[in-house]
């Protein structure tokens, strides 16, 4: 089952990064999850309302899709990655854009690891965006996805522009 990482403000002791502190090249995400099992994918299918058998039915995928076992939903993998990112950025951060290319499937039993670093930063503190490049890997270090994320690190009380 994917590892449940505990989050609480106390864990962070209020030490989330500010826009000024972050530099191009900084590692923003480096986290691993345990192997994906059927409980993980069924929980996700129930949340997502995605009942495609590709994601939980071993017999179906063997006979109909020619795969050795079921594969995790791409959005599930993205969510595990985004979760690491939103934990890192804290309450003043906001995910603005996410571009993902799914490059290889995650099969039952595969573990997941994500890394990411800042590749670009706004020069204007009143428009505080960062671009991060992220990658996901399986337990054999084969890349499973590639993402580019734009996040905003606003000062508190400016998160909601409405």
């Amino acid at each position: 089952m994917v590892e449940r990482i505990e989050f609480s403000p106390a864990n962070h002791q209020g030490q989330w990064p500010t826009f000024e502190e972050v530099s191009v090249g900084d590692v923003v995400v480096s986290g691993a999850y345990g192997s994906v099992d059927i409980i993980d994918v069924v929980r996700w299918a129930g949340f997502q309302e995605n009942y495609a058998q590709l994601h939980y039915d071993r017999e179906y995928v063997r006979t109909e899709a020619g795969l050795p076992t079921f594969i995790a939903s791409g959005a599930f993998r993205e969510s595990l990655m985004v979760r690491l990112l939103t934990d890192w950025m804290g309450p003043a951060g906001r995910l603005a854009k996410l571009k993902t290319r799914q490059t290889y499937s995650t099969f039952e039993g595969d573990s997941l690891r994500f890394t990411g670093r800042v590749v670009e930063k706004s020069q204007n503190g009143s428009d505080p965006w960062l671009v991060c490049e992220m990658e996901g890997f399986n337990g054999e270090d084969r890349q499973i996805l590639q993402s580019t994320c734009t996040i905003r690190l606003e000062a508190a009380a400016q998160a909601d522009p409405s």
Partner: protein
Amino acid sequence: MNREIKMSDPEDIIGPELKAWIGRSIGRIPIPEPISGSEVRRYMRATGDNNPLWFDDDFARAAGYRGRVVPPMVVHEVFRRVGGEGGEWADPWISLPLPEGYTDARNAGSESEWLRPVYLNEPLGVECQITGIKARQGKSGAVTIFAEREERLVNGEGETVFRRLQTMAHLKPQPAAAKGAA
């Protein structure tokens, strides 16, 4: 004598019936019910994402929000409610008139943009349009059909709060063998 073997263009697989789907849209369909706290809880149980911004009104207000916000990846998946299995809008999602044998589909990638925070119990509507259908031949010689759609999530004030360009790869299943591509 050497004879050049000319491969046909992979795009030939996209016939006029399939091509005619490019540009089709669904208008605006209200989601059946607003996003609820129980849904966010189910998301948390699936991902372990227990960020207090999603669960604690006071914490979220201190960060400048009106109250607890819907996690970005929950917003990302709202489209399933109208486009998934049994949804009001089934066709462009799962029933493209694909060539015979193209029974397998995978998420090939997406480009998403969150424009405004989404709060629990906000009325939302979905708009979607098929924007492109392409074919590409892989190293194995198999031709994959890529269908792109643009999806928008609109709030009660008519503001677009989220948009996404989604690419689905449609494949012919291969014989059971090694692990497949994403």
